């Protein structure tokens, strides 16, 4: 047994046993953040807070939700919505957060792309972030099955059918995933398990990894400047706060984060209380019916851009294009050949490339919601082809980019 002195305070008592002071210093008061950043750098903490909201609202939904194909629909739409005190609040928080979290994820990703924050030394931050994107997509999809309405059923049907691999006709795999010939009770209960346990565990693990990968390279800054963090930290600790290029995470950066979160929460709860309908598809208020397809099947808005890449092509090329679109962003750090870590407006053609990407994704999103007819078909094909060409285009553009 090691030697322990009698502690004079609770803090000292904890410090002797858990080294809380060291932890606090290493993880927050001496974790250095560059000064030259803007509100976009608060999006990560906004995402963490939104995940917290999903967790809390999800726990309360879980108290009355029944994972059973005959009971699920009523347990959500009747019990939770009209019997449970404030049940509607948890459901609306959960639904709005699941939608808004993707808006913030896209902003967070595009910020990273704009400032080149996926480059040398920061590849793992990008890769773990993409892991989070995939895990959140799976979490949202599995959650969408749970109310067992018409959209749950038919989205479940269409998405699991993707796993037949087109002409590979791997229907055995599709039936294995479903546990039935069509989505049924076995399907609902296993997706329930994924939604409330396995995927949330994966998400929490990935968040820890994501934070860990930030530690050594530190967050990027508006100019992509390389900073000697040790020197800058010494300056700050010596009281030369003006001269130093950095601030500590806690309390200086965190207080800015909290301000941005405050603004975000006003917007968020405005949606929850006055505009929750955008996150509640009316078609999903009809119970699941395997003998009737809704007139239009479309995913939630955040999947529309990749869905639209699947749609204009014949089945096999469509699946391949869709697969490429899903995986493309993973490879960004390796497709971009330029060594410049700088904001897009200083990188010539890359700036143009960036805005074509943004506009194309918005166009794909809008077209994904429109019926697949006439002119929309043509536009959809063009937008999808443009997206696929952006990959090789990035390689060429960055290969010839002037070194700054």
């Amino acid at each position, binding site marked *: 047994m090691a030697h322990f002195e009698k502690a004079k305070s609770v803090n000292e008592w904890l410090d002797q046993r858990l080294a809380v002071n060291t932890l606090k210093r290493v993880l927050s008061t001496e974790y250095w953040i560059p000064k030259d950043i803007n509100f976009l750098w608060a999006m990560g903490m906004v995402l963490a807070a939104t995940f917290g909201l999903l967790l809390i609202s999800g726990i309360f939904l879980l108290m009355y939700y029944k994972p059973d194909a005959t009971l699920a629909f009523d347990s959500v739409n009747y019990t939770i919505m009209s019997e449970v005190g404030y049940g509607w609040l948890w459901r609306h928080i959960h639904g709005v957060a699941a939608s808004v979290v993707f808006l913030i994820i896209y902003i967070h990703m595009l910020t990273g792309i704009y400032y080149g924050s996926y480059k040398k030394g920061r590849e793992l931050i990008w890769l773990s972030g993409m892991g989070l994107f995939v895990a959140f997509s799976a979490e949202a999809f599995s959650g969408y099955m749970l109310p067992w309405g018409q959209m749950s059923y038919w989205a479940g049907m269409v998405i699991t059918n993707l796993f037949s691999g087109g002409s590979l006709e791997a229907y055995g795999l599709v039936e294995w995933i479903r546990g039935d010939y069509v989505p049924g009770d076995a399907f609902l209960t296993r997706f329930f398990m994924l939604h409330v346990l396995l995927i949330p565990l994966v998400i929490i693990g990935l968040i820890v990894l994501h934070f860990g990968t930030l530690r050594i390279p530190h967050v990027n800054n508006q100019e992509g400047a390389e900073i000697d963090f040790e020197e800058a930290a010494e300056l700050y600790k010596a009281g030369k706060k003006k001269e130093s290029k950095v601030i500590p995470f806690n309390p200086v950066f965190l207080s800015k984060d909290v301000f941005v979160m405050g603004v975000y929460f006003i917007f968020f709860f405005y949606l929850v209380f006055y505009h929750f309908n955008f996150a509640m598809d009316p078609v999903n208020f009809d119970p699941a019916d395997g003998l009737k397809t809704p007139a239009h099947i479309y995913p939630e808005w955040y999947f529309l851009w990749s869905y639209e890449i699947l749609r204009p092509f*014949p089945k096999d090329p469509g699946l391949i294009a869709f697969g490429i679109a899903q995986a493309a962003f993973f490879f960004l750090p390796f497709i971009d050949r330029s060594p410049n870590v700088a904001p897009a407006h200083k990188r010539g053609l890359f700036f143009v490339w960036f805005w074509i990407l943004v506009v194309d994704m918005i166009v794909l999103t809008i077209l994904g919601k429109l019926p697949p007819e006439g002119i929309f078909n043509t536009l959809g094909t063009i937008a999808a082809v443009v997206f696929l060409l952006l990959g090789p285009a990035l390689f060429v553009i960055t290969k010839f980019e002037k070194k700054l």
Partner: protein
Amino acid sequence: MGKDVQGRRDFMGMALGGFTALGGLGALYAMKRSWDPLPSVKAAGFTTIDLSAAQENVLNIEKWRGKPIFILKKSKDMKPDDRDVVIGEDRYHMSIGLCTHLGCIPAYLPEKKMFHCACHGGQFDTSGHQIFGPPPSPLEIPPFKIEGTKLVLGEAGPEYQKMLDAGITA
């Protein structure tokens, strides 16, 4: 560290690793089997349908293994096809009513005499052949057996076997 100690450690490491790998494989197999469809799901796989009351150019939808089954009695002006189920003088189009693209249920348009899938705009004629859009293959024909004017779905009769052999359905 002595040479024999090293050897003993290597041996124990390999033995432990080997047994762990075996146990891991067994666990993976058990997990795979737990995701398989239950026997009760697989057993409920037969349905009998009576065709005698069917009317021309009116689509009937039956249910088999949870999937919709299209039954369309063909009128004289519809082209006969090798995929038809023939009972006496009457020809029927019978197929699984799920679009071969991604599995939505196409709607039947009696005026245009074709199926239209709202999901991505696919179209099929009255024999189930794809005529427009992303569907890569004709509507699938489930295993069937003819018994008088009745069809048993889930059982492969000689007429179905002939279609299979001719490569008309998968």
